[in-house]
């Protein structure tokens, strides 16, 4: 059986706007991926634990609260601490351009998608950049 890309879609922190996360989860499902959705208000610790148990290839964080400069690095650190630094971290939300640059350059996010991004762009990026073997 062909390997399927497994993605964890998570909403860390306190904001309650999960429409975007749910739309993305649904879209990735329609693109043939297995999507684990963990719901609202997740701590980075919970997200990393779920990512390990579910053995996902990608963690997608949806953040609309402005706490991205804290949450992305924390999730990446915890993944590394748990010997799971190979899991690709991407994200989406209202993230200013300057922060996008900092997060990507710092290695805290492989790719970030800001408002206006099409679903195709996200699906294509994952298919092109996530290697399953």
């Amino acid at each position: 059986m062909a390997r399927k890309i497994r993605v964890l879609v998570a909403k860390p922190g306190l904001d309650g706007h999960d429409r975007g996360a749910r739309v993305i989860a649904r879209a990735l499902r329609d693109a043939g991926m297995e999507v684990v959705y963990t719901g609202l208000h997740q701590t980075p610790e919970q997200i990393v634990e779920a990512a390990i148990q579910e053995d996902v290839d990608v963690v997608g964080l949806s953040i609309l609260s402005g706490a991205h400069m804290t949450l992305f690095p924390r999730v990446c650190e915890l993944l590394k601490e748990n010997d799971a630094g190979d899991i690709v971290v991407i994200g989406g939300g209202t993230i200013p351009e300057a922060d996008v640059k900092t997060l990507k350059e710092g290695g805290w996010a492989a790719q970030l998608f800001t408002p206006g991004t099409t679903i195709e762009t996200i699906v294509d990026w994952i298919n092109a950049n996530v290697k399953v073997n």
Partner: protein
Amino acid sequence: MLEVSKLIQGDKRTAAKIITLIENDEPGKHELLSQIYPYTGRAHVIGVTGAPGAGKSSLTDELIKQARKNNLKVGVIAVDPTSPISGGALLGDRIRMQEHALDKNVFIRSMGTRGCLGGLARATKDVIKVLDAYGCQVVLIETVGVGQSELDIMHYADTTLVVLTPEAGDHIQTIKAGIMEIADIFVVNKADLGNTKKMITDIEQMLDMSPRFKNGWRPPVLITSTLTQEGIAELWSTIGHHLASTSASGEHQEVVRKRLAMEVMEMVEENLRNALWNYFTVKNNLTELIDQLADRHTDPYSEAQKFVREISDKIFGKEH
């Protein structure tokens, strides 16, 4: 690279990676499962099945809590449907169980059915073994939301819960064959919605008329509400009571032995089917054969017979 010894010692990442390998049917799967097998057969496997929206995930979450109160290590396999269109899946059962994410003694894995139609994924039975060897004393399996005849869970669970809701159909629904026959325990969930009495009466009447419950275990009908916690503790103790009771009577051991025979048979069948079909396609020009079938020069029945006779002559000799 994936070491069974690490799995036995309870290494989480190893467990997760082995499950992925099995799910994807990757090379090395059978060797791994052979090595894992001696460490299995210890966990109490509890199946949770029922219609979509009956409350299976929330109930499973409550059962995790009960098991943890008793200091048991818990594995959870949560199955959701794979899209027949895209091959993708939205695995959302975890949402109700996330408060256990940080508990080192709870391991939750979501699975897509990947084309399997019995309410579970094809790899579920092997994943049970992985979690068993990983040290889980309780393995909870949540099936997809089922209709009437997705019954695979009965072959893998030691104790099967059929979860219903108060207004889930009339008397006729309870006497139909299928899901209503596989319960070891009936759970009428969402009791907070009221009107549980009619459902209980219908189930009890159905049970009164079932000859096979005259002796041995008769499935109790329990009322639960994950909202008010009604009946949850009682459900947990009834689950334990079921295993103890069927073990004492020998019924449980008999079921386990039957399952082992079935498991070998299934594997023999699957491997033989593949091997024989490969041989068939090597021996026959498939395109030509299909042309002949389409033109009605021959028929599928005779062609199949011919091939089977040839094979059995080879294996058993002409005199069998």
